[in-house]
């Protein structure tokens, strides 16, 4: 590689507040066009914005979760530009005093991607082009956004992807956004420049606008890298420009260059007073933050001794983690809880969304009861798996599948008798075992399982069998 890729991302995240940033309209996705708007979010003459306090709180949550400092005195600014989807001809945003600054997101490798700033702003409406006409839907207008601006610390498309995934994970964990790229609740602008490997002087950058999928981000970056590399190889100069990425051709193209860059004429929004956030409020929000994903992953591996592969499978879904952790707190053993969750329940949680929401009718309480039975050897793991599978399908408690008599198990005397029968009726297996074939004992397990309808504790049976054979 001749050139080092240098990249920074601007990520827009829609906040999951119930109402819009400056009015009481719902933020729910969809709805018939222009039914979720009012004089304020359609910029009617004389209407005034009222800043939604929850938006500020959510943005502070996002800032604290990415290790930012919070500017407790801040204000909003007007970003002026004329476009039909922007009904006031200015977007209320933040310019010189963002709510959050100087944070970072840590990648698996331990590398930190710096967060320059996080600010709050309003989303615009949507243009719909249909049969030669353009329609405007203002339902999305005024939906709260945070823009998360990273430092140019990203050095590969893979790192960009991981950074975005980590951001998604963090935002979902702290409950500020569902970060669904396909629905537009998360979108990225990618800045890219190249410099010779070993250099410290950044090259001229281009910005690819409005990326709405992780794989497109990677592909667009790779394409843009080779495009810029080719220009540099031929002794040319990269022109600073805003680009768009065509998903069909996989190519980037220029939207506008620096010459026709807009002058947004930012100035402080006079309709909204300076926002002063009491220190105690920030601390209150800090205290209310859940354990963050990276910390959870570390704790699962180092403290709970969950094997790293399973820990990876679990920590991405906070609702699953909450379920597992609650079952454990109710006395269920870690190993069986994790194995049953990842083994049995994950096969029922087919989509990402299902896992995101832990969309199963199994409570942590019932899970704990079941796992404890397995932990104590009252049922074997196969029965536990089968039972859990049914519970997940039918939503009934453990007691619906495993009765008291089932749990009585097989008493010691009876088990000894059955073991004897097993040895007597399988001479070949016994001979093989004696000859050193460890696996031959499985035939005896099978006999016992069948004779007891799976109720026997195989561990105990194993001990008895070995005694009998070696006698």
């Amino acid at each position, binding site marked *: 590689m001749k050139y080092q890729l240098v990249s920074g991302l601007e990520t827009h995240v829609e906040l999951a507040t119930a109402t819009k940033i400056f009015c009481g309209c719902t933020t729910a996705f969809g709805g018939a066009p222009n039914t979720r708007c009012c004089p304020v979010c*359609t910029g009617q003459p004389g*209407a005034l914005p009222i800043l939604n306090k929850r938006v500020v709180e959510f943005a502070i949550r996002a800032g604290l979760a990415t290790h930012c400092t919070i500017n407790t005195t801040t204000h909003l600014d007007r970003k*002026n530009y*004329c476009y039909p989807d922007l009904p*006031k001809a200015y977007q209320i945003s933040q310019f010189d005093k963002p709510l959050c600054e100087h944070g970072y997101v840590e990648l698996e490798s331990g590398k930190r991607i710096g967060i320059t700033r996080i600010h709050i702003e309003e989303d615009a409406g949507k243009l719909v082009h249909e049969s030669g006409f353009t329609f405007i839907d203002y339902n999305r207008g005024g939906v709260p956004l945070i823009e998360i601006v990273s430092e140019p610390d990203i050095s590969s498309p893979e790192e960009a992807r991981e950074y975005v995934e980590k951001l998604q994970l963090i935002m979902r964990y702290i409950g500020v956004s569902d970060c669904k790229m396909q629905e537009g609740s998360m979108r990225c602008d990618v800045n890219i420049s190249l410099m010779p490997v070993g250099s410290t002087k950044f090259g001229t950058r281009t910005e690819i606008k409005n990326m709405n999928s992780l794989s497109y981000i990677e592909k667009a970056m790779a394409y843009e890298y080779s495009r810029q590399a080719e220009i540099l190889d031929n002794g040319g100069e990269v022109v600073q420009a805003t680009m768009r990425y065509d998903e069909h051709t996989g190519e980037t193209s220029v939207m506008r260059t620096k010459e026709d860059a807009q002058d947004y004429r930012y*100035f402080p929004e*006079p*309709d909204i007073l300076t926002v002063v956030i009491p220190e105690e409020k920030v601390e209150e929000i800090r205290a209310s933050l859940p354990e963050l994903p990276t910390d959870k992953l570390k704790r699962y591996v180092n403290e709970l001794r969950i094997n790293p592969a399973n820990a990876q499978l679990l920590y991405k879904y906070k609702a699953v983690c909450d379920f597992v952790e609650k079952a454990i707190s109710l006395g269920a053993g870690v190993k069986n809880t994790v194995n049953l969750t990842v083994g049995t329940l994950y096969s029922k949680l087919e989509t990402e969304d299902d896992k995101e929401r832990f969309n199963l009718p199994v409570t942590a309480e019932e899970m704990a009861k079941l796992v404890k039975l397995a932990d104590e050897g009252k049922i074997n793991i196969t029965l536990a798996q089968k039972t859990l599978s049914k519970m997940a399908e039918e939503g009934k408690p453990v007691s619906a599948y495993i009765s008291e008599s089932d749990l009585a198990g097989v008493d010691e005397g009876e088990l000894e008798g059955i073991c004897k029968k097993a040895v007597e009726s399988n001479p070949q297996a016994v001979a093989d075992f004696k000859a050193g074939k460890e696996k031959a004992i499985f035939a005896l397990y099978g006999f016992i399982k069948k004779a007891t309808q799976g109720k026997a504790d195989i561990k105990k049976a194993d001990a008895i069998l070995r005694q009998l054979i070696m006698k």
Partner: protein
Amino acid sequence: MKSVIKTLSEKLRSGQITSVELTEKYIEAIKRVNPVINAYVHETFEEARRDAEYADRLIKEGKGTPLTGIPFTLKDNIATDGELTTCCSKILEGFRPYYDATVWKKLKEQGAVLLGKTNMDEFAMGSTSETSVYGAPLNPRNTARVTGGSSGGVAAAVCADIAAYGLGSDTGGSIRQPASFCGIVGFKPTYGAVSRYGLIAYGSSLDQIGPMTHSVTDAALVYDAIKGEDCADQTSAPVHMGPTALNGDVRGIKIGVAKEFFDGINPQIKGAIDAAIEQYKNAGAEVVEVSIPALKLALPVYYIIACAEASSNLGRYDGIRYGYRAANYSSVDDMITKTRTEGFGREVKKRIMLGTYVLSSGYFDAYYKKACLIRKRVESQLAECFEKCDVLFAPTAPVTAFPLGYSGGNALETYLSDVCTVPVNIAGLPAIALPCGKDKDGLPIGMQIIGKKFDDERVLDIAYFAEKSKLCELEDVEGGVRL
């Protein structure tokens, strides 16, 4: 000065007249007088008749307030649900909002009767009301003169008594200056004391709605009815909510006189104000000399900040959602360009361009940022004054009403005539304008009483002394209702 509201209110309550009857009298007077003075641009007589019936019910049930059943007018930049609200601009041609301004909502609940919307400078940009797309209103005291502006229509309607009172808006003097030109009372409350929700913005950090009335008593009654914090306007603030007490006792009050307010003032105006101050002194007030060196800077600061905010506030008029749209266009951009070219008047375009310029990168620091710094200086110098005095007395304008058409050829002089009123907006202070005499042409002279922030009731009370002591009695203009 007579309290028209009190007189009418007593007649209504005692049953001498019903609101419906009173409303018809005003409607009849409007039909007679308005063709001459052009005060009203949109009549809302159907609304008025409904309001009057509602008011009569309230009065019968004993639920009336001092404003119940009394016909009034709103400046054409205050939103009225279902009624034309056009800022006297072509670009808002036919615009009927589907929401009410908070002030109108409050008055409507009390049974106020809306007669119509009154003339103004287009988007409140002007000092003579001549930039209105409907043509200028005429000064009822001398129809060869302007009403002043931008709330000239309200001033003319009240002066001629074809409205018992009105609400105007004041960004740089737009309530006080026309009140003075027409010889009525105009009160600009502290920024934030009255909700701006529904007031179509010109300079958002300066705009303030306030009463324009026949007397100080009326101004206080109307102020009481519209004041207060509003959850729909984040820049509004809590104020004392009881009725304003008017005693007019000025013993021991300290009147500040800053020489900077009197620089270059017409000597007749200075004389009238000096005479008024003398009367206050005789009643026990004390006069202290104060100085506001930065006062003259308030004017350029005002034009920079107001235009900057206006350039942003007026960006929304693109012909897409409401108002005027150009007839022939080839694309969206072309439609927006043509709509704005045809829809805005010359003065508005001038201010949009000025404002865009001062916010542009490369000029922002030299103009807008510097203006904000100087604004702070003006504010702090005024605050310092109020450590030495209770109120400031000043002229409302350095001149009396201009001849019609004069300002067209004397734009700079017209801009400069705002010199006494803009510092009040720059600092967000309350100020009342009231008549204090006449010049040699018989045109009313206005004086201003300026208070510190949220001292609105004190300002009204100190002004009430002038009313109580009959400091200046102008004769009534004929033709109006005059009950």
